[in-house]
């Protein structure tokens, strides 16, 4: 049986350490990989609907801010300080126990967050709960089976951030979404080729399997 998330014996604590210690390096990545970031943002933006949104794992607000999402949850204090400065109302919390009322949002976003969750299934259940009927869940992540996903997995132990990460394939994420009751998936992909070679905002394409960064849009059912 495949277990998504941490080992049974692991203590369930939010994985905040690298974000607390290396927050300046985290921020620098976005500057040094500006067009990678903008390509990811462009693919995510394509799926963002109207209405009230929330980002779970909002981090420093690099995605929420340009997407006009003004509510976020994050367990890292350093990250919250940065996103608060961008005008986002941030709550200290985790994806597995989201502190919002049922049916509060038209859509929820998670970007490069699922790899840091202790329990992806519990988090998807929580996102389903806080969405309105027919609400949307948009997830951006590095596909484990892509060239970048394979590279990150190989170098995982050497990375202060990815050492604690668990990567997923697009199919694994879709399976988890289905178990949480989501329906009607659409995917787009971007980040083609090596990160160092990306010097323009890349056009995203439908589907997955070629691009290293995949965005999935799923819907909550209209009725239970």
């Amino acid at each position, binding site marked *: 049986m495949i277990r998504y998330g941490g080992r049974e014996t692991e203590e369930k604590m939010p994985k905040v350490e690298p974000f607390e210690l290396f927050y300046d390096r985290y921020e620098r990545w976005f500057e040094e990989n500006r067009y990678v970031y903008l390509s990811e943002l462009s693919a995510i933006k394509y799926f963002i609907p109207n209405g009230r949104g929330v980002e779970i794992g909002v981090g420093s607000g690099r995605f929420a801010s340009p997407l006009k999402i003004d509510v976020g949850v994050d367990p890292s204090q350093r990250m919250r300080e940065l996103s608060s400065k961008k005008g986002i109302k941030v709550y*200290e*919390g*985790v994806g597995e126990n989201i502190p919002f009322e049922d049916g509060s949002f038209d859509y929820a976003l998670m970007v490069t967050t699922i790899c840091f969750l202790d329990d992806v299934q519990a988090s998807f259940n929580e996102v389903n709960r806080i969405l309105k009927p027919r609400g949307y869940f948009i997830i951006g992540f590095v596909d484990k089976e892509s060239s970048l996903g394979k590279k990150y997995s190989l170098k995982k132990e050497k990375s202060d951030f990815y050492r604690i990460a668990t990567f997923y394939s697009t199919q694994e994420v879709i399976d988890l979404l289905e178990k949480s009751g989501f329906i009607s998936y659409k995917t787009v992909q971007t980040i083609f080729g090596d990160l160092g070679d990306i010097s323009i905002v890349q056009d995203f394409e439908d589907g997955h399997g070629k691009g290293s960064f995949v965005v999935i849009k799923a819907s909550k059912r209209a009725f239970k």
Partner: protein
Amino acid sequence: MRRDLIDLLACPICKGDLIIESESISKEEGDEIIEGRLYCSRCKEYYPIEDGVPILLPPEMR
């Protein structure tokens, strides 16, 4: 946190309604609570507001 945002919040554990514990508020700026405490009337758990941010982690994760 802004007072009016309390309606959006729920207890991260039992999803009960959270209320602002008025007597716990030690610092306010306009309608922003800077230091204080939220209370879950269902499971009786407390959640601090520190530096304007509600700490809504389950107690064992704090």
